[in-house]
């Protein structure tokens, strides 16, 4: 049973260019998907809610990864676009658009906004661009707080649950499927993008924009495009968030959240499609784990011995900060690389080393 081919046996270019290289890996994928679809039957609401969060955050993180990892443009304003998607979807639903349609439309609307804010990207480079996106973050946040007609102002906006053909997807067990659907669609689309013309162009722009330009790649177009695509993903993720929480408030989309997106992407692995999902999982699960560790400690022997008391909360925050740092030190290339190495290990098993 191997997930990656152990030799070059491919006979056609199509086979060489597929995303899933062996039959077994395709099989594993199908089984995995089937297991995933059964999840609501066995898992509790808590586990499902974590998975749902991983889902919509993962989609948005993937968008950011396309921007940062593939095109090499750092953005510190992703949460604002995520928020825009959330508000846009809520607003559309308020104006009579059914939720299933509002989600992709919100994505498109966010993409348009992203394009506007992406325009400076054609001229700016590196950290200058990063800080310009920081400006986008604050400007959009200010806009959210001000535009009552759109966002409900600072009080936020309540929105409707996802309904399709009369079915309400308003519980974790049901909404889970909505999120899984979008995750699959968005991730497959990204994987496809990366192995076709425009995806390669994005990476080329990242690696060496001067020579990319001479290869006939229009820098301004692709730099802006990658903002558009990233914002589209953020918008869809945000819309899914909106119809999950059923309440959208400007407070959520602050700079801290933007930085968390960045952390997801880096922890998951820059330039790795699946890494985005892994990074999102890491950022969602880690605080939960630390939290449950803290709860387990609370009142326990260690707690009393060290008289931790209220400080456990600070220890938790510190643990999160430390986890990010340790992660970067010991796994600087992200979870995706660890995953690849693990696969490589199994490929050779039992003859590794």
């Amino acid at each position, binding site marked *: 049973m191997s997930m990656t081919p152990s030799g070059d046996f491919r006979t056609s270019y199509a086979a060489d260019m597929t995303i899933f290289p062996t039959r077994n890996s395709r099989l594993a994928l199908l089984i995995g998907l089937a297991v995933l679809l059964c999840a609501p039957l066995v898992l509790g609401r808590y586990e499902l809610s974590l998975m749902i969060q991983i889902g919509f955050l993962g989609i948005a993180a993937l968008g950011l990864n396309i921007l940062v990892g593939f095109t090499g443009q750092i953005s510190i304003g992703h949460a604002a676009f995520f928020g825009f998607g959330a508000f846009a979807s809520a607003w559309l639903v308020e104006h009579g658009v059914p939720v299933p349609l509002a989600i992709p439309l919100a994505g498109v609307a966010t993409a348009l906004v992203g394009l506007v804010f992406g325009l400076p990207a054609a001229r700016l480079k590196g950290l200058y661009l990063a800080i310009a996106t920081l400006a986008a973050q604050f400007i959009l946040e200010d806009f959210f707080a001000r535009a009552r007609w759109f966002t409900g102002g600072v009080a936020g906006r*309540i929105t409707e649950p996802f309904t399709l053909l009369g079915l309400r997807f308003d519980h974790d067990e049901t909404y889970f499927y909505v999120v899984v659907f979008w995750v699959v669609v968005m991730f497959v689309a990204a994987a496809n993008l990366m192995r076709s013309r425009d995806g390669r162009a994005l990476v080329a722009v990242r690696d060496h924009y001067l020579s990319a330009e001479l290869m006939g790649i229009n820098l301004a177009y692709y730099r802006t495009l990658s903002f558009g695509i990233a914002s589209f993903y953020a918008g869809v993720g945000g819309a899914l968030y909106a119809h999950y929480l059923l309440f959208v408030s400007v407070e959520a989309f602050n700079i801290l959240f933007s930085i968390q997106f960045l952390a997801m992407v880096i922890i998951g692995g820059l330039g790795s499609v699946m890494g985005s999902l892994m990074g999102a999982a890491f950022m969602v699960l880690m605080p939960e784990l630390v939290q449950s560790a803290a709860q387990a400690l609370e009142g326990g022997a260690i707690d009393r011995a060290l008289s931790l008391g209220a400080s456990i909360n600070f220890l938790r925050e510190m643990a999160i900060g430390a986890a990010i740092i340790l992660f970067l030190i010991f796994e600087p290339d992200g979870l995706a690389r660890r995953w690849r190495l693990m696969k490589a290990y199994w490929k050779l098993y039992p003859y590794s080393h």
Partner: protein
Amino acid sequence: QAPYPIGHIADYSGATSDVGVPYGRGVQDALAWVNANRRIGGRTMNVMTMDYGYQAQRAIAQYQAWMSRERPVAIQGWGTADTEALTTFVTRDRVPYISGSYSAALTDPTGRAPRAEKAAPFNFFYGPSYSDSLRAMLIWAQQDWRARGQTGRPRYVHMGANHPYPNSPKAAGEALATELGFDVIPAIQFALTPGDYTAQCLTLKNQGANYAYLGNTAGSNISVLRACQTVGVQVQFLGNVWGMDENAMKAAGAAANGVVFPVRTSAVWGQDAPGMANIRAISRISDQAGTAYRPVHYLAGVCAAMLMVEAMETAAERGQVNGVSIRDGFYTRQNWVPNGFDGVCAPSNFTAEDHRGTLSVALYRAVVNGDTTQGSVDDLMRAGTMRLEPVTTINLDRRRDWLGW
């Protein structure tokens, strides 16, 4: 018998932790004290405290976790953003939610009040809403203006960040100010974080405001107070309930002198009242030595927790303890003071149509007369360098057109 699961969402480490810590500790200590000293229908409570760091997302995730595992029968909550976000959920799941947010939007259980935006049938809090507190302060301000023998129209300005919590009473305040004959100056904004607010103070001075409402929490209010003191602004500041307390007075020093703000309890730490003995006992839960000074928020936290406990006791007496029966427990008493907390917790009245627990607002004045930089709050209070001076108590009419905003 299994203990009742109780959720407790607190901010011990986030942006509002300066007030979140004393309030949350008050809630936690009170519930622990109840567990140790008296049972609810023979059962204890399993209090699950969660520090969400003032991040609404985390609160919601935790809420989901609880609802799928422990299913708390009631929840003690905190901030405005997360409480408003959870309103839909607690309504759906029928869980009474006692918040630290006093947003007036949470006070209309039916959603039918003229200016209400939504129904919040399971939301409760102890004390007057932000809007009602501000209304009371405005009424006092008008009296004060006359008492000082001033003529002409006093000028009122709302100050704070553009954020649900400072904004919550803005409309209510400006409406009443106009009604009372104030000149309402356009609101002045300043962020929720400390910073240089000299520009705002210069504006304030320039516009000649007489009364200014400070809508933020202590951290940034201090910056404003100090900046305004530096540039020499002559204005009467009206603090909000989370915006001023003993710790803020110490930090702001002389700049805090004279700020008027609402206090939710009938007595503050160190004063005598029949209920104080119990408060001291509760305080000892997290402070064995019994030496800590407890700010006003701690007492408010205790009262909020005790309301919930007694509502649960009522539910237990009537049979089942669940979300709906606890909610109904809030409606059974008139002028409700938790047993054993007389003279500390102010009387509350909740009805199925109106969750404004109290309309009586006690106003205090912060008095600082000396250097606050050395010594603890406790020392300073004891030495009299800082004092909380009762000003007056304003009893508002239970006007239906003031419900829900």
